[in-house]
């Protein structure tokens, strides 16, 4: 049994390495092509570029999180449905609410305080609530959601779907300018949205299978919204415009680096949490924690 578990862990680590290498390869290829060819996209090719650049990191990260549910992997179709639902909610509600109703571009950056508070209260809560809704009102009540760790798997799928739509929107709005830098932003943003949604998913999983107080999941959404807001603040305040020519090189990358560190740290904690949950003797693939 112990040997089998060890073999399984080794295969996951190998697969993770392949995922990371595939991401690095993807970023390097796009970076190189953009630098060498400096392509100008408009119309349909621009949309297609946005879709490809957004989907590739999303699919790789999806595999990264999906592999963690090794005891009873979720049906791929169901995961894909939640991924799609996350994207649809972003397009139908998330982006219009932030861009039109709250028009965050017009006021968020007027001061540091409004930037950080607005990023958490408006951007963070809107996005994390929608990812929560994508899981809570679809797969949460189904028989497939049969162990706590499923919350993380489905929520990260919703988060990646949400991020994919944001990234397509980002490429189109920026007119495909400077994709070399854009592809790094897209990759980090995908990981960030997946990991923050994973936090919501952890709380959802606990809500379903353990006895938690009524405010439990709300506190999870609040925590994810705070992480999301801090990420948003770091990326936009210190990045100095990923697609602009302004700012010194060091300043330009500092925010990105900090935001990437935050997303990686949350992913690392999530991975540890999943591993721990898998080893819990009372948590079976059949569902409820044995009291």
């Amino acid at each position, binding site marked *: 049994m112990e040997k089998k578990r060890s073999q399984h862990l080794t295969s996951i680590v190998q697969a993770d390495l392949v995922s990371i290498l595939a991401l690095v390869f993807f970023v390097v290829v796009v970076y190189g092509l953009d630098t060498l060819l400096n392509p100008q996209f408009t119309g349909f090719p621009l949309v297609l570029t946005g879709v490809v650049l957004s989907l590739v990191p999303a699919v790789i990260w999806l595999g990264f999180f999906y592999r963690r549910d090794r005891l009873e992997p979720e049906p791929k179709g169901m995961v894909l449905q939640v991924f799609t639902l996350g994207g649809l909610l972003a397009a139908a509600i998330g982006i219009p609410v932030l861009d039109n109703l*709250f028009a965050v571009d017009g006021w968020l950056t007027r001061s540091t305080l409004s930037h950080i508070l607005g990023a958490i209260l408006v951007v963070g809560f809107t996005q994390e609530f929608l990812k929560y809704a994508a899981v809570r009102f679809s797969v949460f009540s189904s028989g497939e959601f049969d162990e706590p760790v499923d919350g993380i798997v489905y929520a990260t799928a919703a988060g990646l779907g949400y991020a994919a739509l944001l990234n397509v929107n980002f490429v189109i709005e920026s007119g495909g300018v400077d994709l070399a830098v854009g592809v790094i932003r897209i990759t980090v943003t995908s990981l960030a949205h997946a990991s923050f949604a994973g936090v919501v998913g952890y709380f959802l999983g606990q809500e379903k299978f353990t006895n938690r107080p009524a405010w439990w999941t709300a506190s999870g959404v609040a925590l994810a919204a705070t992480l999301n807001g801090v990420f948003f603040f770091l990326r936009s305040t210190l990045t100095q415009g990923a697609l602009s020519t302004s700012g010194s090189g060091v300043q330009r990358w500092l925010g990105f680096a900090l935001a990437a560190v935050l997303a990686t740290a949350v992913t690392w904690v999530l991975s540890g949490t999943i591993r721990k949950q898998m080893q819990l003797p009372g948590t079976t693939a059949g569902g409820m924690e044995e009291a």
Partner: protein
Amino acid sequence: MTVQTMTSRSSSQTLYVFAATAIALLIGWGLMSYVTGNTRPVTLDGVSAAVPSGWVIEQPTTGPLNTGSEVAGLVFTARDPLDPETRYLVSSLPASPDTDLGATTAIRNLQRAQDLTAYRVLEQTPVSLSGRDGYRVSFAYVDASQADRVPVVYEGVDYYFAEGDHTIVVTLETARSIEDALGAFQAFAAEVGLGE
């Protein structure tokens, strides 16, 4: 644990999530109202504007402007003391009612190209901002005027509006991300006009 207990527990969890989100968004709405409404009216040389509270206003005759792209007709510069590399410039140029905004932009671009280092016009196009027809010029230049620091790339946007016998030019210049500053600037530019 019964299914009924689980369902009722999940319902209360869901209610709490909805309540937390609603409260956060309401506070966010209040924050937005406070930030967007937190301006002070300014009228200088016949040009009125709603400047964000706390911003420093400098006039050509009273302050050390130190703006690389200072051009003729400058009425005032407004800058955020927390972000000194972002500034709004408001200029007023005499014009006849049939003055072509495109020609005015060409003259100013030419003047800047002579005065500034590596001045580039990135895009210029007729626009409509909050129902006002005008002309927008996106540009960039290098500020190498200070000997004790490395040259800084500034990006900027001009909005040109014809107002009676004047052309109002509202300019954003920033060394930070122009995408981040543009929304707030457009709200500011939409309010600038002639009058008390």
